[in-house]
């Protein structure tokens, strides 16, 4: 098949691209906003609301995502189990210790429209560096924040 014909070009534009995002030193909320846009396909000029042509994203280092220090301690995840008097709650810090990917996944879930929550399946979150999708990834995403930690600054 010639690489220059219309069919192959169409296949290339409409295929889903796998992105890798290093979550280290990224602000959680801004990353979630960017991810929800990419999963829905809103970053492509061929966006159509009826066809799901979003891309897949693999996020590594979810364990070192950044959120405000008070937010980790004061912001609370609440849920009701259905039984009377069973309104449970958990701070974000506790949730992060339970499952480091939970907070980011919840953020992206709430940012997606209710009809399109299934696109969360295209998002793969990993707390560390290892992930099984090395053969799928085509390109890397640049996160919205550009920070260095205090101890990583050189003496100036």
């Amino acid at each position, binding site marked *: 098949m010639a690489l220059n014909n219309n069919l192959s070009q169409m296949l290339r534009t409409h295929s889903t691209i796998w992105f890798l995002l290093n979550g280290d030193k990224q602000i959680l909320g801004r990353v979630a906003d960017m991810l929800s846009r990419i999963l829905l396909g*809103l*970053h*492509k*000029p*061929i*966006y*159509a*609301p009826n066809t799901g042509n979003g891309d897949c994203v693999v996020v590594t280092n979810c364990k070192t995502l950044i959120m405000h220090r008070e937010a980790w301690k004061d912001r609370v995840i609440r849920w009701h189990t259905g039984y009377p008097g069973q309104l449970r709650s958990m701070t974000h810090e506790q949730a992060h210790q339970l499952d480091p990917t939970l907070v980011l996944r919840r953020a992206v879930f709430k940012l997606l429209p209710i009809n399109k929550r299934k696109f969360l399946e295209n998002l793969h979150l990993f707390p560390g560096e290892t992930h099984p999708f090395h053969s799928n990834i085509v390109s890397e995403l640049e996160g919205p924040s550009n920070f260095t930690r205090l101890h990583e600054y050189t003496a100036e």
Partner: protein
Amino acid sequence: MSRKAMSQGMAIVRRMRKSRVKALASGFRGMAKTSFSIAIRRVHRALKKSYTSRRLKKRDMRQLWITRLGAGSLQHGLPFNFFMSGIYECRIQLDKKILSQLSMHEPFTFQGIVKMASKHFRYAAKQW
């Protein structure tokens, strides 16, 4: 006229009157495509909806063009508001429909348009 002839004639008229509604009810669910008294209600609703949707379609398409233009111009480095401001300054009179089609099907032309818009944009183009 005999009674029989008259009733047959009235049956033809009745069928003709109802067939216009039944033609509009093709593809409806259940008895709504077969029985006139059920079809007439569904057909009224369908016609009302088609009237309002002809106006809604224009709004929805414009919203879709704007979403596509925002994505396309951000790919080339300009957010949508700066892009439209630059288009206005350049005096490019292409409308959003054509611009969105260019961003989909003619990527190099669209890249040139974004470059022109960023050049003419009044404030410095943000580095995204």
